[in-house]
């Protein structure tokens, strides 16, 4: 029998603390659609997505209603297109992206990820064609997301790919200059990309994954913040060990809900359940912010001294609670700090508490990395590449995922505001100290070798 208190506390989480499932992402392998005829690949891929994902939104809506838990986003992740459509040249790759966009719209999902390539050790022809196609593909589609893995702890950092991505990001921004460079909001550069991310823009279905699979991304910054506020209200003398316990308990609850919903959707679709991604994913709404948690912990703002330690505690406690709740944890699994997608973080950047350099430091103890960071439109491809290279190095050396989603907003400069709309939010453009001082290093090219601890066999 449930107690009065249990029932009412659950309702409180649902109604006032934004407990929801942030995304249910259906992975669909497109490897069997491969063809030497690009048109045939497109036909097969569109047909397969339509057939497999036909009921995704319907089943998600039914489960959400039945359980009273909102499923905020329904998404699809496909095999890396650079592999599945490796016979395509750049023009054909753009056509593939448009076809994916149409397929996404037909089944009514929010985003489709997998316009992706893994190039940490070098390029195939398909990889180069896909990367060349990215700017136009993202400018002429609405729902396609792209991710490029340029580094890994096993392979090192492909600096040629890093430089190429610096140029690609600039071009993608230019082609969407009328929308503040929104093309770049759908493009992430990774080190150590996981094969099963449900979150965009990094979602794709790795080649070691099953034919179809449901992965879920849980939510919960609002729930964590309220739990901490309640506990600190009842006992203002809580220490950080006790605070860590509260975060763990809360992450446990959030993850259990996420996995339950994911499994019910998977059952409804007749698809295996894959993983729950334990990331604390904010939205640009008051009360659903990772940044606000820092203030609850007694810091004036995210970005001030103490922020890295606080984030380390938060991220670790979320993982511990989540790992106890679910045996199948994957994806990124850590706190997200996307500047524009979190009202509080965006405000901290505007006020100057959060700099690019501090953001980089924070990413050494959390997942993702430099996420949704708006930069001046004239930031050079070499500087963009150098920022990416630094972020990749943190991931490679620390055996973790890091990523960069940088947006050089055309025509705007540091201090201006960039507006992306919807869940992507808006952000003040951050200054880059020492811009245009990295070209010599970046133009050296080649591959930074894998670190010594890659030799662990």
């Amino acid at each position, binding site marked *: 029998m*449930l107690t*009065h208190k*249990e029932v009412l506390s*659950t309702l409180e*989480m649902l109604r006032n603390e934004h407990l929801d499932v942030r995304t249910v992402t259906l992975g669909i392998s497109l490897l069997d659609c491969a063809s030497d005829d690009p048109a045939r690949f497109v036909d097969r891929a569109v047909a397969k997505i339509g057939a497999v994902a036909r009921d995704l939104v319907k089943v998600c809506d039914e489960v959400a209603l*039945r359980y009273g838990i909102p499923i905020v986003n329904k998404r699809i992740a496909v095999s890396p297109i650079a592999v599945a459509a490796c016979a395509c040249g750049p023009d054909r790759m753009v056509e593939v992206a448009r076809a994916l966009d149409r397929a996404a719209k037909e089944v009514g999902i929010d985003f489709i990820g997998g316009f992706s390539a893994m190039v940490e050790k070098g390029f195939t022809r398909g990889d180069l064609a896909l990367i060349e196609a990215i700017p136009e593909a993202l400018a002429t589609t609405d729902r396609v997301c792209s991710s490029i893995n340029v580094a890994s702890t096993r392979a090192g950092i492909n600096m040629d790919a890093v430089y190429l991505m610096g140029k690609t990001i600039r071009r993608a921004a230019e082609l969407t200059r009328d929308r503040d460079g929104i093309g770049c909001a759908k493009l992430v550069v990774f080190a150590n990309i996981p094969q099963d991310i449900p979150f965009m823009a990094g979602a794709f279905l790795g080649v070691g994954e099953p034919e179809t699979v449901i992965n879920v991304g849980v939510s919960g910054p609002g729930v964590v913040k309220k739990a901490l506020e309640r506990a600190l209200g009842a006992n203002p003398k809580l220490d950080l060990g006790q605070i860590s316990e509260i975060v763990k308990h809360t992450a446990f609850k959030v993850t259990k*809900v996420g996995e*339950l919903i994911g499994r019910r959707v998977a059952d409804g679709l007749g698809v295996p359940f894959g993983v729950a991604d334990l990331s604390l994913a904010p939205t640009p709404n008051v009360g659903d912010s990772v940044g606000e948690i820092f203030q609850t912990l007694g810091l004036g703002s995210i970005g001030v001294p103490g922020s890295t330690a606080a984030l380390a505690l938060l991220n670790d406690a979320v993982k511990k609670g989540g790992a106890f709740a679910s045996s199948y944890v994957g994806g990124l699994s850590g706190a997200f700090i996307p500047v524009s997608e979190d009202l509080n973080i965006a405000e901290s950047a505007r006020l100057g508490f959060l700099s690019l350099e501090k953001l980089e430091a924070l990413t050494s103890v959390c997942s993702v990395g430099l996420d949704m960071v708006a930069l001046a439109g004239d930031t050079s491809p070499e500087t963009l590449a150098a920022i990416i290279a630094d972020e990749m190095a943190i991931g490679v050396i620390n055996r973790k995922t890091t990523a960069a989603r940088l947006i050089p907003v055309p025509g705007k400069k540091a201090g201006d505001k960039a507006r992306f709309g919807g869940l992507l939010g808006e952000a003040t453009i951050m200054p880059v100290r020492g811009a245009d001082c990295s070209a010599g290093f970046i133009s050296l090219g080649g591959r930074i070798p894998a670190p010594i601890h890659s030799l662990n066999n």
Partner: protein
Amino acid sequence: MSKVILSVVGHDRPGIIAAVSRVLFLNGCNIEDVSQSILQTEFAGLFIAALPKSLKIVNLNDRLMEALGVMGLSVSLSEMEPSGTWKSPPSEPFIITTMGADRPGLVAAITELLAGFEVNISNLKAVFRGGDNPLENTMIYEVDIPVALDHNLFREALYKRGGELGLDVSLQHREIFEAIHTV
């Protein structure tokens, strides 16, 4: 061997369950199920017990009345009929919660709707203390909703009824509560 269902009601105090179970034990009865609840100052207990063949129900009733009557408790004892019991259709467990200002007829209005949809209540806890605090004016129903029932139709009707009564109603699958509160 026959079974009886026994209800005992009266002012709560220490020793009620002890007194009931002592009479049942001394008369050779085997307790199969017990449930008790306390509402404000009042105790209510339900017992299902198997009787030995040699014991007549009327005799057990006399002995219970004798032992519990002096404690100011009222006793009701009856034989359980094996036939004619209600059989639950295949169902899923849900929790209905309502919050809102107290007024006469709230329980009647909600339960009438549930009955109309053949939704069975397996547990109900309602508290009405008046005032504006929603947490002091709640009803929590644990219900079994037949799988065959049109869920959307039921949900709409329930929310509509809640709105008419000025209640904030929620209907959620019990698994959510269990997922959150069980390790």
